[in-house]
């Protein structure tokens, strides 16, 4: 067996079948029963306990999905890849995803044609608990599907693995379990005539219930309840309470009706006669007229006072303010960038609706300028661009949300905008973070969140082995703002108000700490940037 390294720090785990992603071909009740049995395989061999909850916040959330489903492990239709699960951790950690295209079988003896959900789920939950694949044939954690036998028991290899992580199951001796009320035979002791004492205990057989996961304690038998000190005919003592003015601590009387303290106590004659003990005089607070008073909720007030008082209105000088239109024009020396691209040998930096242009002679005057003035084919209501790059055929690609705008110089090409899903990107993708032609191999790359794609410009489609995880680009992390190749042939990644220079051969950043963008790319003084925005 192989332990991945992460483990749960609590042993009472919760699980849930994701309500919006149930299996499309299976009965959800039967599915949940099989999932509970799969977890039970691990519960029987370790100290772990599992409780089903109806929440996506459960430790282990099970879902069924097809093809690309918002992680780096897209499914492949029926066959080959059946499911995957994430190692213990927060968020997606522990979750198990099953390929909804598979022919799942709830019953374990008819798996000739389909795939036993029990076998696969038990395997995946091994990952959810922290086990990696095992190379032992016959082990549950063997990566290739082996089906499942009736009366399946956890193989020794997996048992050793789970017990190394969480310890073996502790079964309390039967005689030590207090049982109440007594409906079973107590231990009977037989003393022989010899000095040897033999104890014969009539044990109740251990019966395992698969549907007991809604029980909070998970013990095979409920612990004894304390005897009821207060039968229903005897009134329970009420807890003490403070009187509404917070000055008296009442321990003897019944609590008055506290429907509204602002009106308490104002007993009606009827109440006074029927419940005289609930009436007590209350001292109203004195109103200090030197200060404006403010409403105090839950505080007794005397309706004879003008309380709460209106706040005192100080005379204010009359000023005329001119409304200023909201501007998203960025501060050149203190901003992040939406996109950076080298177009026709000039550097274009985009932020909100504006862009800067830096040519051979340096910064063009009059910038930042509205992007629409250079590329009027962009939609009128756009607020920002997500990614921009110049294609090898010198056309300029703008990505805004789920759409691609392709320009020949300044003219939008006919047929555009097109959906980015037409490039082979998942339709669920809301936007790209960045796009570039990587100078290292001349290929086009798209980035979004934690994933990236390699794009075949000739085919007009992303390559089949993608998406891949952004960890391949070591040091830049996820959710980058932009990336481009500068004239020096180096790749630069941008995030926030800083950037990294990337070493293409070593596939990692040349400096782990970001450098501030404004002094390097915008020619801003270093002091100003460092003072105004402490850099991380």
């Amino acid at each position, binding site marked *: 067996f192989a332990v*991945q*390294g992460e483990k749960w720090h609590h042993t009472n785990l919760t699980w849930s079948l994701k309500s919006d992603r149930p299996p499309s071909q299976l009965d959800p009740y039967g599915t949940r029963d099989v999932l509970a049995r799969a977890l039970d395989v691990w519960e029987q061999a370790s100290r772990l306990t599992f409780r089903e909850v109806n929440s996506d916040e459960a430790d282990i959330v099970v879902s069924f999905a097809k093809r690309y489903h918002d992680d780096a*492990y897209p*499914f492949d239709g029926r*066959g*080959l*890849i*059946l*499911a*995957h*699960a994430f190692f213990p951790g927060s968020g997606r950690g522990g979750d198990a995803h099953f*390929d909804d295209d598979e022919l799942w079988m709830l019953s374990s003896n008819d798996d000739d044609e389909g*795939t036993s959900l029990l076998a*696969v789920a038990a*395997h*995946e939950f091994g*990952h959810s608990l922290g086990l*990696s*694949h095992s*190379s032992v*044939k016959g082990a549950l954690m063997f*990566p*290739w*599907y082996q089906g499942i036998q009736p009366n399946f028991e956890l193989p020794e290899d997996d048992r050793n693995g789970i017990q190394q992580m969480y310890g073996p199951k502790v079964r309390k001796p039967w005689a030590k379990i207090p049982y109440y009320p007594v409906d079973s035979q107590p231990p009977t002791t037989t003393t022989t005539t010899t000095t040897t004492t033999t104890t014969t205990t009539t044990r109740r057989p251990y019966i395992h219930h698969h549907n007991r996961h809604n029980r909070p304690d998970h013990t095979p038998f409920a612990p004894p309840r304390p005897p009821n000190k207060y039968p229903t005919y005897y009134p329970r003592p009420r807890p003490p309470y403070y009187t509404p003015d917070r000055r008296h601590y009442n321990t003897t009387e019944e609590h008055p009706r506290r429907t509204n303290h602002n009106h308490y106590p104002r007993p009606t004659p009827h109440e006074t006669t029927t419940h005289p003990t609930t009436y007590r005089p209350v001292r109203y607070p004195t109103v200090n007229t030197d200060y404006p008073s403010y409403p105090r909720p839950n505080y007794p007030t005397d309706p004879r006072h003008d309380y709460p008082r209106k706040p005192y209105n100080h005379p204010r000088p009359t000023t005329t303010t001119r409304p200023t239109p909201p501007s998203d024009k960025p501060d050149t020396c203190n901003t992040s960038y939406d996109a950076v691209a080298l177009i026709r040998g000039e550097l274009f930096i985009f932020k909100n609706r504006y862009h800067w242009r830096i040519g051979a002679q340096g910064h063009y005057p009059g910038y930042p300028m509205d992007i629409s003035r250079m590329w009027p084919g962009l939609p009128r209501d756009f607020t920002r661009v997500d990614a921009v790059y110049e294609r090898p055929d010198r056309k300029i690609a703008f990505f805004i949300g789920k759409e691609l705008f392709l320009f020949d110089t300044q003219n939008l090409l006919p047929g555009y905008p097109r959906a980015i899903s037409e490039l082979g990107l998942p339709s669920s993708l809301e936007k790209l973070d960045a796009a570039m032609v*990587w100078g*290292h*191999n001349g*290929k086009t790359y798209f980035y979004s969140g934690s994933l990236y794609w*390699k794009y075949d410009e000739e085919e007009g489609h992303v390559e*089949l*082995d993608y998406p*891949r*995880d952004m*960890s*391949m680009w070591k040091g830049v992390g996820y959710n980058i703002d932009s990336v481009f190749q500068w004239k020096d042939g180096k790749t630069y990644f941008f995030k926030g108000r800083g950037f990294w220079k990337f070493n293409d*051969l070593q*596939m990692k950043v040349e400096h782990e700490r970001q450098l501030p963008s404004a002094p390097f790319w915008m020619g801003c003084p270093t002091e100003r940037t460092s003072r105004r925005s402490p850099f991380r």
Partner: protein
Amino acid sequence: SRPPRSTHHEINVRSYLETFGYLQKGLPENLLLEGDYEDDFRIAIKTLQEFGGIPVTGVIDEDTKSLLKQKRCGRPDREIGDEENIRRKKR
């Protein structure tokens, strides 16, 4: 020098090896320039055969083809921590 273009079959096997952790993902982009593809590929095949419990030959034989077609879990067999073991030592 660029290595000869891989056949479609090899590309599928390479994709399999990458997906399940026997070949480091993303390396091909570098290896196209370095030309070290062949060794890594053969070592990866051997590792796969050893893990799958079939004869270790280093070539894609019938047993290997059969293993590649079997239904399986989508998690890689070798995790990120094993990356250093996957990466070929510099000769």
